C-alpha cells in the first residue's frame, strides 16, 4: 500500500511559474516516431523550418568538411572555450556585413538563450512586453519566466504604431520574416518601427532568424550602432539546417552589446559549436555565398509550386517570403490539430498552428522542401483528406442505417441543398453509398480526372442507390447483418447485381 501524503507546503518557486508551460514547437520527430510507430528516418519533417537545400556539408564547393570540424572541436575538448569568442564574433560580424563589427556581436547557445538574456537584462517582474500575433511562441514564454505581463497586438498594427499601442511596453518583439505567417517587412518599415520604439523608450527586438532564407538585404543590422534601443537576433540553425548544434548571435550597439556580453552565461558556446559555427560564418560571400544564394533560389521555386498546389486543393495559403507557408484550412471541416495528427500517422509532420496565440485551429504551417518532398506532402494531404472524407461518409452512413433500422427507408431529404441530386422522389438513405467506389461502370459511375491530376470515381451518372426498392433490399441486409465487408458483398449481390 502506498500512502500518498498531500504536500501542502508550496515549493520554493515564484508563484507565476507554477503554471508555466514550455513553448510548443515543431520538429518533434522522435516523439512522433514513438507515437505512430514509424521509424525516424521515414518521417518527413515539414513542421520545422530548416533550409530545404540541406547543410553546407552536402556541397563540396563550400569546402566544408563536417567530420574535420567536429574532430577539431573534439580535439579541444579538454580546454575551456575562450569566453570572449573573438573569432566567432569576428566571423559573425563579417557574415552579417552592413558595417557590423565584432563589438556589436553577442554569442548565444541558440535563439532561446538570446531571447532570455535580453529579457533578463531589461525586464523586471510586472513589466509589460508587446507581442504581435501570431508569432514565435518563445518570446512570450521567456518573458513569462521573468514575470512580465504580455500585451498582445496584431501584426498589422506594426505598420501604424503609436504611443497608445506601445504605451509602457519595455520590449516589442518583431519577427522578420514572421513565423508562422512568412510575412517580411522591408527595411524602411522596420526603420520606422525602430524610430517609434526608440522615441517611446521601448526596446525593439527584431528576430531575423530566417532572413538569410528570405532576403538578407532587408536586415537592419546597420542600424544598431546609432540606436541603443534596437536589438537583432540571428540564428544559424535554420539557414544552415543544423539545429543539433546550438548556435546563434545577437547584434546590438557597442554599449548595449557590452552589457549583454558581461551579463551572459560564461562559455555558453561549447568548443564544437564555436568551431563549426565559425567555419560556417566564414563561408565565402557571407549572406551572399553560393550556398545561400542557391538555397534562396530553391526556396522561391518550391514555395511557388507548393503554394499553387495547395491553392488548387482548396486551401488558402498566405503569401510568404520565406521557406514555409502559412495556410488557412477553414474551408475543410477538419481542424488543424486533426489534420496534423493524421498527417503524422502517415509519417509527414506539419505544424499545427493552434498553439500560436489565439489564432484558433484553422491554420497550419508547412515547410517548403525539395520537389520530391513537397510532392510527398501534397500526396499525403490528399490521402488524409480522402481518408477523412471516407470516415465522415461512413459515419454518416452508419447514422443513417441506425435510423433506418428503427423506421425503414428515410425517404427524400428535401432539406439538402443538393436535392434532388438525381431525380424527384429519390431516396436519400444511402446518400453516402456503402459500395463506394464500386468501380463498376454498369451503374453509370465512371472514372474522371481529379483537380490534382489523378483519377477519381464519379457517381454523377449513377442513381441506382436512390431507387426506393433498391434501398429496401440493401437495408434488409445491412440492418440485419451490420455494415461489414461480407454484408456489403451480399447486399451488392442481392440488391444490385440482379438489376445491372
Amino acid at each position: 500500500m502506498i500512502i500518498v501524503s498531500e504536500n501542502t507546503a508550496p515549493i520554493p518557486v515564484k508563484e507565476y511559474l507554477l503554471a508555466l508551460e514550455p513553448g510548443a514547437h515543431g520538429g518533434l520527430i522522435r516523439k512522433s516516431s514513438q507515437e505512430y510507430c514509424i521509424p525516424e528516418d521515414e518521417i518527413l519533417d515539414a513542421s520545422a523550418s530548416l533550409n530545404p537545400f540541406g547543410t553546407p556539408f552536402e556541397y563540396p564547393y563550400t569546402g566544408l568538411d563536417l567530420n574535420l570540424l567536429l574532430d577539431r572541436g573534439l580535439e579541444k575538448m579538454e580546454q575551456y572555450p575562450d569566453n570572449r569568442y573573438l573569432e566567432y564574433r569576428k566571423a559573425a560580424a563579417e557574415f552579417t556585413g552592413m558595417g557590423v563589427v565584432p563589438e556589436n556581436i553577442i554569442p548565444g547557445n541558440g535563439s532561446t538563450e538570446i531571447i532570455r538574456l535580453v529579457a533578463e537584462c531589461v525586464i523586471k517582474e510586472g513589466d509589460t512586453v508587446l507581442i504581435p500575433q501570431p508569432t514565435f511562441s518563445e518570446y512570450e514564454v521567456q518573458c513569462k519566466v521573468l514575470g512580465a505581463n504580455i500585451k498582445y497586438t496584431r501584426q498589422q498594427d506594426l505598420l501604424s504604431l503609436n504611443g497608445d499601442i506601445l504605451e509602457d511596453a519595455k520590449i516589442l518583439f518583431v519577427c522578420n520574416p514572421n513565423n508562422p505567417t512568412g510575412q517580411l517587412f522591408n527595411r524602411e518599415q522596420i526603420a520606422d518601427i525602430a524610430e517609434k520604439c526608440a522615441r517611446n523608450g521601448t526596446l525593439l527586438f527584431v528576430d531575423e532568424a530566417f532572413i538569410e532564407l528570405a532576403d538578407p538585404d532587408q536586415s537592419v543590422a546597420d542600424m544598431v550602432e546609432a540606436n541603443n534601443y534596437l536589438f537583432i537576433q540571428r540564428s544559424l540553425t535554420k539557414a544552415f539546417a543544423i539545429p543539433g548544434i546550438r548556435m546563434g548571435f545577437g547584434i546590438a550597439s557597442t554599449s548595449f552589446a557590452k552589457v549583454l556580453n558581461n551579463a551572459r552565461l560564461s562559455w555558453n558556446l561549447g568548443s564544437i559549436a564555436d568551431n563549426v559555427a565559425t567555419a560556417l560564418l566564414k563561408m565565402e560571400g557571407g549572406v551572399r555565398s553560393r550556398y545561400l544564394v542557391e538555397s534562396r533560389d530553391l526556396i522561391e521555386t518550391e514555395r511557388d509550386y507548393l503554394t499553387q498546389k495547395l491553392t488548387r486543393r482548396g486551401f488558402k495559403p498566405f503569401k510568404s517570403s520565406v521557406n514555409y507557408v502559412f495556410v488557412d484550412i477553414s474551408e475543410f471541416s477538419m481542424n488543424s490539430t486533426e489534420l496534423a495528427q493524421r498527417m503524422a500517422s502517415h509519417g509527414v509532420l506539419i505544424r499545427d498552428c493552434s498553439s500560436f496565440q489565439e489564432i484558433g485551429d484553422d491554420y497550419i504551417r508547412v515547410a517548403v522542401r525539395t520537389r520530391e518532398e513537397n510532392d510527398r506532402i501534397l500526396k499525403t494531404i490528399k490521402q488524409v483528406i480522402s481518408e477523412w472524407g471516407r470516415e465522415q461518409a461512413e459515419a454518416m452512413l452508419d447514422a443513417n442505417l441506425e435510423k433506418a433500422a428503427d423506421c425503414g427507408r428515410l425517404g427524400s431529404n428535401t432539406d439538402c441543398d443538393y436535392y434532388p441530386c438525381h431525380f424527384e422522389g429519390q431516396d436519400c438513405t444511402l446518400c453516402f453509398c456503402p459500395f463506394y467506389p464500386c468501380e463498376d461502370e454498369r451503374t453509370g459511375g465512371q472514372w474522371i480526372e481529379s483537380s490534382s491530376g489523378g483519377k477519381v470515381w464519379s457517381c454523377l451518372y449513377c442513381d441506382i442507390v436512390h431507387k426506393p426498392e433498391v434501398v429496401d433490399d440493401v437495408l434488409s441486409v445491412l440492418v440485419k447483418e451490420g455494415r461489414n465487408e461480407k454484408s456489403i458483398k451480399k447486399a451488392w449481390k442481392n440488391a444490385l447485381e440482379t438489376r445491372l
Partner: protein
Amino acid sequence: MHTQLLIIVSEDDKKLPVKRYLLDISPCNHGGQLDKASEELDIAESDILDFSSCLNPVGNPFKYEDNDLDIENLRNIAAAKLEQYPDNRYRELRSAAAAFLGKGIKNANIVPGNGTCELLRLILECTLEEGDKVIVPLPCPLEYHHSCRTFGTVPQKIALDEMLRIPKRTIEKSKLIFFSNPNNPAGKLASREEMREFASKCAEHQTLLVVDESFIELSDPAQSVADLAIDNDYLIVLRSVTNAFSMPGIRFSYGIASKAMADRLNSARLSWNIGALTESFATGVLSMEGGPDSSYLKRSREFISKEREYIAGRISALYGFKVLESSANYILVDMDGHFMDSERFVNRFASHGVLIRECSDFFGGEKRYFRLSVRSREDFEKLIGNLDDVYAESSREAAREQLEETIEHPEKTVSSRGTCSYYPCHFQGQDCTFCFCPFYACEDEKTGGFWIDSATGGKVWSCEKCTLLHQPKTAKKILDVLMDEGDTDENILKAWREVIKPLL
C-alpha cells in the same frame, strides 16, 4: 548601397534599455584562459602549463582502454542527429545521469544544463524575488556572485568555517543559500552527515539550499547528498561532467531536485539547451560502468590524493606559504607571511608560461591566496623549477619599482628606516635609500656577496655580507648618477662603473 535612415534615439545618448544595476556588471573571471594568456604573454598555448583550471589531471576518459567508450561512435551518433532539433525532453541523457548517481534518483529528478552557470541562473530566475536575500560562503565560486548580480542582488558572505553553523534567524531571513562542496577554491569537503543536517535546517526554515558538487567525483562521491533532494523541495544539488571527466569543451551539468521542483525547472529552462554532441558525449561518459566508482574515476581519485599530498608537502616546506587542508583536486595556498603578494607571484609565474589562479577576487581584493590545481608530478616539478627565477625577478621588479620611486622622489626616502623590522640589517646608522639594490644580482664576490643553495634546489645570490650600498656617502653618489638625465638602465651601468668598481 543601403539607404541612410534617420534614427532618433533618446536625448541621453548613453541611455541603454537595461536595468540600472547591470551597467556595473563585469564578466566573471575564471581560470583556464589559455587563449587569452597565450596572447598576452606571447607564448604558444602548447608551452603553457595550466595550473589555474581544475580539470581532472588524468585527462578525459577517451584516452584510456579500461572503459568501453568509443569516441568515434559517440561522434557518429551525434553527427547523424545534427540535422534535427534535439528532443527537448532529453530522456536518455537524464536517465544516464540518474543511473550514474543511483540511490533511487530517477530521470524525473534531473534538470539538464549547458554548464553550471546556466543552472545557477535558472534557479535564481525561478526563485529569487526583488529584495530576497542570498547567502554564499567566503570563499566561493565567482559565478555565484555574478549570477546574483544579474538579478540585482548582492549576496551576503559568511566565512566558510561558519557556514554550517549559521544561526536559525539568519537562515530564516534568506531565500537561498549556495554551498560549494568540496569548496572551490578552498578544497574543504563537508561530510554527508554535516550536509544532511544543514539541509534539514534550511528546509525547516523554507530556505532553498543549492549544493554545488561539481568536484565531488574527484574528491569523495560517498559524501554526496544528491539523493536527499528527492524528498526535499528545498534542496537542489548540482553536478557536472566538465571537471570530473576533463571535458570543458562539452558543457554539461545537471541539477538534482525533487520531482515537483525538477518539473518546474525543466518547464522554465531554455529549450534545446543541449546540442547533439554534448548530449551524445555526456550520455556516453555518464553511462560508463561503475558510475562514480568506475575504474577511471577511482584511478583519478587515487592519483589526485597522492599528488595533492606531495605538492602540499613541498609547498608548505617553502618559507611563507601555508597550504589549507583540501580534499579536492586543487589546493588553496595562503601567502600571508610572504614578502610577495599573490598578484605579483602569479604574474611572475605567468611570464614563464605557468598559469596559477590568483585568488584576490575570491577574497574581496585581498592579495593573499592562490589556487593550484593538482597535475602530474612532472608538471609540478616544472612549476617549482621556475620558483627561483620568479623570486629573483620579483625582487628585481620590486626593487626596480622602489628605485624608480626613489629617483622620482628622493626627498621621500629616509636615510635610515627606523620603522623597518630588520633594521639595522647591516649596521647602525646605515643608509636605507637602496634597500633594494639596483645592481642585484651583481654576482661579483668582491662586494662580499656570494652564492647560496636555495630551498628549491637551485642557487641564489646572497647580499648578506655586502654593506656597500648602505654606506651613506656611496648611496648619495649612486643616487646622483641615477638621477641624471637618460635611461635608468644605462645610468645603473654608469653608477656601477663610476661608483662601485673603484671601491672593489
